[in-house]
């Protein structure tokens, strides 16, 4: 599991960056999605545009921030607008290529819960809710989910569907009229997962170096599809250098 030149969060950031393509519009949140997008810009995707839900396009932040409401993340932007200027004119209009989201729970069809979790003794705990997550999940062309891989978070069925994945699988997502493409990649601290083209069930694509397939299975609360499971390509030394020296020198997000 341990290795000498990168951490699991660095690997997740690199894996996210590699999934992004040049000239894409990427709607990012705080933390790893932002780090992954900047890394992609500095390597293979110089034409990538970062978009923030709060009304910001193309920022070039130089200091770490605590959220998208932190003005540090708006530094040197090219454009400021209102909520519908981003969530309408870009997202609902179908111009967001990739949206990054996270959640408390995910199910076998990629539906995400970030709203409420039932308590064992009855009652429930309430959390952040949707924010823009539902809109991104509904309308972006591709969704990347970044989560830690734990059995209690990877559930057969989420108790509350905050952000729609493939709903009940097969064509149920398109049948209900959702325009976005749905989740395409789940990047965890153990593996990279995708979805079966027909059934839309979650499928194990690769396990990170040092992680066994059984580790992933044990930490997933439903049956994963798999055929040829590869090993996730580890970060290169130059990617790690960029992350540590340039993108997150304080190691706020990639520790």
């Amino acid at each position, binding site marked *: 599991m341990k290795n000498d030149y990168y951490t699991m969060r660095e690997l997740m950031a690199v894996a996210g960056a590699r999934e992004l393509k040049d000239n894409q519009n990427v709607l990012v949140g705080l933390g790893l999605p932002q780090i992954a997008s900047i890394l992609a810009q500095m390597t293979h995707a110089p034409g990538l545009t970062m978009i923030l839900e709060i009304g*910001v396009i193309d920022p070039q932040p130089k200091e770490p921030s605590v959220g998208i*409401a932190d003005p540090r993340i708006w530094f040197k932007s090219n454009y*400021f607008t209102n909520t519908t200027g981003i969530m309408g004119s870009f997202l609902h209009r179908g111009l967001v290529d990739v949206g990054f989201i996270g959640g408390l729970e995910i199910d076998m069809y990629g539906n995400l819960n970030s709203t409420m979790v039932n308590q064992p003794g009855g009652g429930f705990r309430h959390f952040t809710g949707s924010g823009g997550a539902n*809109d991104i999940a509904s309308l972006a062309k591709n969704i990347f989910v970044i989560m830690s891989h734990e059995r209690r978070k990877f559930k057969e069925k989420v108790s509350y569907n905050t952000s729609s994945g493939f709903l009940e699988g097969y064509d149920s997502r398109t049948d209900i009229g959702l325009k976005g493409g749905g989740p395409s990649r789940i990047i965890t601290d153990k593996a990279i997962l995708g979805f079966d083209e027909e059934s839309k069930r979650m499928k194990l694509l690769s396990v990170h170096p040092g992680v066994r397939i059984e580790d992933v299975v044990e930490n997933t609360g439903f049956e994963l599809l798999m055929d040829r499971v590869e090993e996730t390509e580890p970060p290169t030394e130059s990617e790690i250098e960029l992350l540590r020296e340039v993108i997150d020198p304080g190691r706020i997000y990639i520790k």
Partner: protein
Amino acid sequence: MAAASKIVKMEEAVAAIPDGSHLAFSGFAITRSPVAFAHELIRQGKKNLTLSQCIAAFETDLLVGAGLVKRLNYGGGSLDRPGPLHNVNRAIERKLFEVNEYSNLALAMRFMAGSIGIPYIPSQTILGSSILEKLLATKGDEIKTGKCPFTGDNVVMLKALTPDYAVVHVPRADKSGNAIIYGPRWDQEAAMASNHIIIIADEIIADELTPHLAQEVIIPAPRVDMVVNQPYGAHPTSVYGKYDYDRAHIEEYVAYAKTEDGMRDYLDKFVYSVKSFNEYLELIGGINRINELTADSLKKY
């Protein structure tokens, strides 16, 4: 063309809000929250408020914690990394008020419809989600599903939302209400949807200056009813171009807000024990703390 001054004292602006009003605040998590206005609402003991906000923020958690809110329409929210909206989450868990959960865009589109005076707006977000399912079950008079009459696509029909008052914190305004916002303006739809707008400005600029800054004016005077001048009135949240958020104070708040008893202590210490927001600013460290938070002119935070 000398416009009449709409400047009033904070106490007067808040006194004009009847119990049971529907308010839209400008905050987003930890930025541009009209905190001074919220403090005065609490001191005046307003009751049964309805709040509508795309991303709930510091002022909303404060008002929920103080027990002023009977209904919350919101699209989710937190205080970013410093912590969750403890009071909002607790009120939902204990069913202390009516909560209607949307997504950011679904609520923003309700405001957008309200802002341009159309009765409803079709949308293709939230389809298939528990958000939509719950709203259809409880708020069928405000949200419906149907087909687009042209394409036959499934759509969500969102009723226009027109709060009674928007309370918008801005860095600068003139005395007739032309209000300047720097940086992103997530709250523009909510402000323009509201029947009345109250501007809380850190700085009042001369009317003669406004034509030179017209491109920075986001809310125009004809829509504005009252203007209150309250420097640092969004503390501990940030105002882009004016001051940074006070991370230490927000973290202190989150620690207090974790329990109901703690929240009462916070309100006693920072809201009820003072008569005005200027007294509160003394309490949080006065001019020395304010100097530390004042924005760098290039970075704007």
